[in-house]
């Protein structure tokens, strides 16, 4: 179980450009953190660095309470690239995501029901609307229980009803001891604190 995540004196670079440096903050179970900042400030890169995909120039991201090798199994990353293949059906993609992240087919079915995807599951992914596609990507968060959710612009293509529903799901995750780090431009639909990136 993650007891704390420390981001210590972190500096990230994309290509030749230094995005930010000396970024320090701490998150603990039950926290929802909204990462704010201008376009290109480095919010997405910060999420990828926390996920362990991006190597920092300086500083570190430390997961307390779990082994360093176990961090990838403790998190879901929902980026703006959703990794869904247009030619496969929604169910094939959701089932794969569930089994790949250590969940089960039953978990995938329950997640589909929660996000009201049942009637869409036989469709090819390329036939889904942007909002439906985002809901399919979000269903992955529920297929396998993992404590840390890293969300990149989770609200963008959703209508107001689904923004509220997503807010409920996120609040439930946080209430159950989960952690959410979300890069956003609009406020998150649940109580959260903000961390400014690249200020």
């Amino acid at each position, binding site marked *: 179980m993650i007891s704390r995540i420390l981001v210590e004196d972190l500096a990230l670079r994309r290509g030749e450009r230094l995005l930010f440096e000396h970024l320090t903050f701490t998150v603990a179970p039950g926290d929802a953190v909204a990462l704010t900042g201008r376009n290109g400030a480095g919010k997405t890169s910060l999420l990828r660095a926390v996920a362990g*995909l991006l190597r920092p120039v300086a500083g570190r991201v430390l997961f307390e309470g779990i082994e360093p090798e176990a961090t990838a*199994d403790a998190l879901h990353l929902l980026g703006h*690239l*959703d990794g869904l293949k247009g030619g496969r059906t929604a169910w*094939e993609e959701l089932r*794969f995501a569930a089994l*790949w*992240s250590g969940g089960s087919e039953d978990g995938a079915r329950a997640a589909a029901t929660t996000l009201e995807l049942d009637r869409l599951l036989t469709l090819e992914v390329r036939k889904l609307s942007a909002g439906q596609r985002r809901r399919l990507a979000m269903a992955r968060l529920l297929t396998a229980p993992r404590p840390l959710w890293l969300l990149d612009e989770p609200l963008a293509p959703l209508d107001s009803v689904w923004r509220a529903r997503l807010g409920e799901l996120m609040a439930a995750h946080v209430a159950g001891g989960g952690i959410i780090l979300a890069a956003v431009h609009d406020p998150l639909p649940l109580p959260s604190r903000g961390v400014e990136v690249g200020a």
Partner: protein
Amino acid sequence: MRPLATLLGRELALAWSRGGGPLPALAFYAGMATLLPFAVGPEPERLAAVAPGFAWLTLALASLLSLERLFERDYEDGTLDLLALGSAPLEAVCAIKCLAQWLAAGLPLAVAAPLAAIALGAPVTLAPLVFLCALIGGLAFAFVGGLGAALALGSRRGGLLIAIIVLPLFAPPVIFGGGALTQLAAGLPWTSGLALLAGWTAAAVALSPLAMAAACRNAVD
């Protein structure tokens, strides 16, 4: 093991839709076999003499064709992030992808290779060895080719770059397999060529996943 089995199923389906399967393999060989007489002349003796080597080299070239999309598509649509964050090591992921590539594209080509050789007049006694070389060599081509595809990630004109990276690495297996075929055609002992080919394949299968995973980590960074 469950996640890896699931991944293999998905990769097989994707490799199939990328141009694997028996029909494209047979069509490619049919096209090449039709062109060959125009290039080297239509005399049956000449065609029969080059047929086994032609079938073998065509396999190496055909293995290059669908490589570009092996990692590139996953890199572009974010799947590579998902795979890197899964419960299995990235080395295993890369090995599974190459294995699926071999099963979907390499096996049909290995079946087509001896057929093409026989159609061009090669003695039927050579066909089993052509098949065996194509089967074993195809596995090496898939893994070495996957290495090229991973190294070319994120570059423009990846296909050309893959060919440039991979073709020199194809030289040893092509030499070993071609040597075995020539030896058998001349009635000489041929097993050493096949053994060297199998050794090269084993090394490619064992080592290239390490390099592929490193290249993928570098690409998502």
